[in-house]
């Protein structure tokens, strides 16, 4: 009798849940975020918590098809290697230790005209998650890209440097019924994380042309799908943790007379000049702050690094105010393209730009978990300050699912964020 009387809340039936979507072959297109990259590397545990795999798991509850990822094997589970949090220094900064055992590295080759490429153990078999760490939209029609990116090369049958299959051809070789696409981040992020010094922003028109090409091919048979916008690079902890104020305070603790930190900042075009750093200049997370104040050789003699206009901090360590503005201008243009193309093709849009901007401004509370964009403590971003924790990926997966449900009237169930952990503390 007790079991007959149990409370029973009506939930949505699968047939109704998928509306008119065909989820039999869902594929995910994208970069490192899509691959499940985390903590500075691609490794098995990260792949298993990739947002597309979480989306697929939820789709499977309402009749979605199998979702196969190019997983590293158990004995090579650490993949490319990654960073592990092993403790805290007395000043509270984290101690990160690289994991270097059980890797899937099969070699390093030198590609003429490019440089060294790390190659990984090949993956063969069916594939639904096409996330390739490092890839830009700019790369999707480049035939030799499979020779230059080890994460792409491991998915291809041929060995570098003999590949000629473009990413676009690779992902569309086998028809899909539904897709997610989150390409475009690296077209801005690679420039930004190099401090505006080691890479370039993809031209806006090129971006629009390639995005149209990509979506046209993905929707060639009328497929439905979801796309995501490019987040503002300044919304990630990689650029918000090491601040001008913190560096200056650290220096002043030892040398109170120091009034400013000097950087080599963009003036215009490709002209750089030294100036005092402000709070609007963003240092990269990996900037070795211990360099500041060390004597370096300059045309004016030995001077303390970063403390005089003649020994400014190198451009590679800082995305200065003008570079920030330039990046943001490009990102906004990319996002206009993404939204316009999505609207034209009747695709759902996860506006990652707005979402992460909100998290940065207001934080986020989900099921009693307080989350924000802070490094380590925030719970969303992994140890590299760019990619996400499993919990962060589950939140992103739910945002994708919500966008799909809103657009197509489906009721794909949301994932349980509490099932996915944040940073692993020692």
């Amino acid at each position, binding site marked *: 009798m*007790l079991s007959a*009387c*149990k*409370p*029973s*809340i009506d*939930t*949505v039936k699968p047939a109704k*849940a998928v509306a008119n979507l065909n989820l039999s072959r869902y594929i995910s297109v994208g970069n490192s975020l899509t691959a499940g990259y985390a903590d500075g590397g691609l490794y098995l545990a990260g792949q298993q918590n990739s947002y597309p795999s979480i989306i697929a798991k939820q789709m499977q*509850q*309402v009749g979605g098809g199998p979702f196969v990822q190019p997983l590293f094997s158990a004995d090579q589970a650490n993949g490319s290697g990654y960073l592990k*949090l092993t*403790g*805290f220094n007395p000043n*509270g*900064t*984290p101690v990160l230790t690289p994991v270097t055992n059980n890797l899937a590295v099969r070699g390093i080759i030198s590609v003429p005209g490019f440089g060294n490429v790390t190659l990984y153990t090949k993956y063969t078999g069916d594939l639904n998650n096409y996330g390739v760490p490092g890839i830009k939209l700019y790369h999707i029609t480049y035939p030799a890209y499979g020779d230059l990116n080890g994460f792409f090369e491991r998915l291809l049958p041929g060995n570098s440097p003999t590949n000629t299959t473009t990413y676009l051809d690779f992902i569309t070789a086998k028809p899909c019924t539904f897709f997610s696409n989150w390409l475009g981040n690296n077209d801005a992020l690679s420039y930004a994380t190099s401090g505006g010094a080691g890479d370039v922003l993809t031209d806006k028109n090129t971006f629009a042309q390639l995005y149209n090409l990509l979506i046209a091919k993905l929707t060639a048979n009328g497929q439905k799908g979801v796309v995501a916008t490019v987040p503002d690079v300044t919304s990630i902890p990689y650029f918000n943790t090491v601040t001008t104020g913190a560096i200056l305070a650290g220096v002043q603790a030892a040398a109170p007379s120091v009034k400013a930190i000097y950087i080599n900042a963009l003036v215009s075009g490709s002209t750089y000049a030294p100036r005092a750093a402000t709070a609007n200049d963003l240092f990269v997370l990996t900037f070795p702050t211990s360099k500041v104040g060390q004597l370096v050789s300059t045309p004016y003699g030995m001077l303390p690094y970063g403390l005089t206009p003649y020994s400014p901090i190198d451009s590679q360590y800082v995305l200065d105010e003008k570079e920030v503005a330039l990046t943001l201008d490009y990102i906004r243009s990319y996002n206009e393209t993404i939204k316009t193309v999505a609207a034209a093709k009747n695709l759902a849009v996860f506006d990652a730009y707005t979402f992460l901007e909100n998290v940065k401004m207001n934080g986020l*509370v*989900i*099921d*009693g*978990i*307080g989350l*924000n964009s*802070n490094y*380590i*403590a*925030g*719970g969303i971003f992994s140890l590299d300050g760019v990619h996400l924790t499993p919990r962060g990926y589950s939140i992103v997966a*739910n945002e994708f*699912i*919500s966008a799909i*449900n809103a657009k197509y009237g489906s*009721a794909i*169930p*949301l994932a*349980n*964020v*509490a*099932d996915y*952990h*944040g*940073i*692993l*503390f*020692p």
Partner: protein
Amino acid sequence: MVLALTPVFAFAQGFQVNLGGVKQIAMGSTGTGTLQDGASVFFNPGAVAMLPQNYVQAGFTPLVFDSEFNPSGTNATYRTANKIAPPFTFYGVWGPKSACWKFGLGVYNPFGGLTDWGNNWPGKYALESLNLKTFYIQPTLSVKLTDVVSIGVGFVYNRATINLTQAVPLANQQGQDGQAVLNGTGKGYGWNAGIFFKTLSGVTVGITHRSGVSTDFTGTALFSVAPSLQSQFASPNGFTSTVKLPSTNSIGVGIYPSPKWTLAFDANVVGWDVFKTLSFAYTVKSANTNQSVFPQNYQDAVSLRAGAQYQCCDKLALRFGTGYATAAAPDGYVSPQVPDADRVYLTGGFGVKISNHFNVDASFEYEHLMARTQTTIQTQLSGTYETNVYIPGIAVAYHW
């Protein structure tokens, strides 16, 4: 590095149990305006002096609170463990046969909650389990002023315990959550008073006030988190908290259409409005463990009850009843501790006279809390709660 992750303690709106006596439960938990047995100490201290006999009685009403939660936007359902909360009652009433007064003593559990959602559900960072018990001990003096009216007053000492567990969203190397466990005991004082009329028409009427009981808890908080973070969570830590248990005003009538039939009606207003916030202050304060303030924002709630007794013969009485109660927790403040909602209940039972001095009574109550879809403002835990409560009861009474 300072972790901006305060554990979210959001325990417990008090939960009124309304299990004052097995005969009364069987009659829809009416009893303010009727005269049944020693349970009048709880239902209406003013009626005690009108009791025809002296009583010693004990009752046991094991309670299963079966809640289901369906997170918004999902097909998943989660259910509380079928744990049995053990409310009991003890009453003694004594006075010389010729005297116009009686002395009473009651021990009962008017508030409590036992919800165990486990450590594997979406709301685990809001609550894993809560076990709140209150033991009111109430000495009572009642005086019959005339054959028509009697009054009574009781003093209440509350001894309470609380046990709360909650996951802390900081994972160790194995991906396991941290845990917070609070254990405490509390005490508080209150009073109650009632008046009872036996009107010339035969209708009986009772009016009572049970005061609020502000209960002060002290206890120990244990936090276990990954070793590298443990120093930021003093453990064991102490805590203090004050829980304002509400007052109840009741009016009830008893109607006797024939010698075999008793009809009873009660109306109650529970002063939940006092329960606006809940806070825990920790003894060792840090960024993570300072003071936690949790809005509850309860509002006064009303319940309406009706019951009947049919005395088939000298040896057997049959009883049944029903009731309706409004929720105390307003929208936005419903949480897993007590998934509060408007509720209806049906009751039934019987009483057997074993001998001239000895009675056994049994009851069963089925209570249904309406499905309620809520997003708790504080935790953003969003979903639909639905609850059934099953309460069998048995009591023995010796009277002379």
